[in-house]
């Protein structure tokens, strides 16, 4: 198209400004001026560069004045652009809605199946309990306490809880957050309590591997993931297997969710804790009335203990 335009173009004609300059100059002089203007302007460009380098404030001021003058234009311009952008985003969301819907429908179906399974199991459970004259566990009492400090004290991985003066918290109570096991209360003051987290080096928690029902011990390492040790022969903890507490040693109730098995890089089975131990804010302290292995007191208490106290 430009070429088509070019064919119409005539160099002589284009060199002659239409509209005509008001001051009539002789043609050679005008040509000389035209030839001279470019070098002069290029020199001026270098001058502008130097000026911009020497007086940055001036450039900045001019720039801001220009920007101020242009801002209303951009403001008006931004509206249709924003409208187009919104429309595009809307269209994209609509397109994605189909796949999202399909996914949600699938998930819903799956959840419905699970719900059916759960209801069936619940009914079966109720029936069996009736037949066995099963005495259910009493619903444990609990109180919620705020975590006020991390670490400190004797243990590397422990948190301090603020509790009221008439609290009734005692040693050996079990702390859970909204997802799973956190640890156990080891020290109780008049307004505070300390909870030893399951990740502490000194923490030993009897657990059950839910898939194989095998007993094991959860051993803290001071790292984010405690290790699983002492599982019986013939059983290997499977990757992704759920780990729950075991009622052995009468320190924990059975079946509190702890985490899932995850093999470390070195091949040792570790537990990815359900509880978010690195950002605890509120924990619930459950009183299961258990008096298994309790942490040692500075003054010996007449409670049953093992020969080597663990907590």
């Amino acid at each position, binding site marked *: *198209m*430009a*070429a*088509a*335009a*070019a*064919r*119409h*173009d*005539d*160099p*002589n*004609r*284009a*060199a*002659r*400004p*239409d*509209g*005509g300059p008001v001051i009539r100059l002789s043609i050679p002089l005008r040509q000389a001026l*035209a030839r001279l*203007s*470019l070098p002069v*302007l*290029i020199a*001026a*460009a*270098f*001058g*502008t*560069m*130097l*000026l*911009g*380098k020497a007086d940055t404030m001036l*450039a900045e001021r*001019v*720039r801001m004045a*220009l920007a101020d003058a*242009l801002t209303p*234009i*951009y403001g008006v*311009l*931004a509206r249709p*652009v924003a409208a187009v952008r919104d429309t595009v985003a809307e269209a994209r969301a609509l397109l994605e809605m189909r796949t999202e819907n399909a996914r949600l429908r699938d998930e819903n179906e799956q959840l419905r199946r699970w719900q059916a399974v759960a209801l069936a199991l619940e009914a079966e459970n109720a029936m069996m309990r009736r037949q066995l004259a099963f005495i259910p566990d009493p619903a444990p009492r609990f109180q919620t306490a705020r975590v006020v400090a991390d670490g400190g004290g004797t243990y590397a991985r422990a948190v301090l809880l603020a509790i009221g003066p008439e609290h009734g918290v005692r040693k050996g109570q079990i702390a859970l957050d909204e997802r799973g096991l956190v640890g156990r209360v080891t020290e109780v003051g008049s307004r505070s309590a300390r909870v030893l987290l399951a990740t502490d080096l000194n923490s030993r928690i009897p657990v059950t591997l839910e898939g194989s029902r095998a007993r094991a011990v959860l051993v803290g390492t001071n790292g984010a993931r405690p290790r699983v040790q002492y599982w019986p022969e013939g059983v290997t903890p499977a990757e992704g297997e759920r780990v729950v507490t075991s009622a052995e040693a009468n320190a924990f109730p059975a079946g509190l969710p702890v985490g899932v098995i995850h093999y470390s890089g070195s091949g040792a089975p570790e537990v990815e804790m359900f509880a978010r131990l690195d950002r605890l804010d509120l924990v619930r302290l459950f009183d299961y009335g258990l008096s298994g292995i309790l942490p040692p007191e500075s003054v010996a208490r007449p409670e049953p203990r093992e020969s080597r106290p663990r907590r």
Partner: protein
Amino acid sequence: MSVHGKPEPAPGLLRRLDATARATFPVAFTALLMVLAAAPVGPPGLVWAVALPCVFFWSLFRPAYMPPLAVFPLGLLHDLLSFGPLGIGVLILLITHGLAMRWRRALVRRSFLVVWLAYCGFALGAGGLGWVLQAVLGWRVPPIAPGLNAVGMSAGLYPSLAWLLGRAHLAMLHAESAA
């Protein structure tokens, strides 16, 4: 075609307005495009990518309406809009204008493709010159990618811009031959 050599009639007000509008159109349109391209919604480097084709096109096809004296403020506008070091755009546009003027006899009657290829060469050279100037003025090595990006963008924009400007150019020719 045989329009030149025709004596100009004494211009009436309307005709004079018309002529003025025609004479100012290239520069005004370029400035407007640059201002629009500088809107904060577009990609960076768009101002440069828009200014260079306009200056190149008008310097090639209608240099009388894109004199160096108009290229200078356009370059200044570019530098102010693009927040780069002052003077780089001025120099680049002036040199582009000068080279396009020098080679216009060779280029102006070629096919569009040749002109476009020539423009790509101009854009690359201008990008390289800008990079060197930035390095010298800022005294550090600037990244190459944004410059290449702008060169590519301007080379890609040239056909559509040239089409638009070519239409305007034809319309001007018609108006002039009618006058």
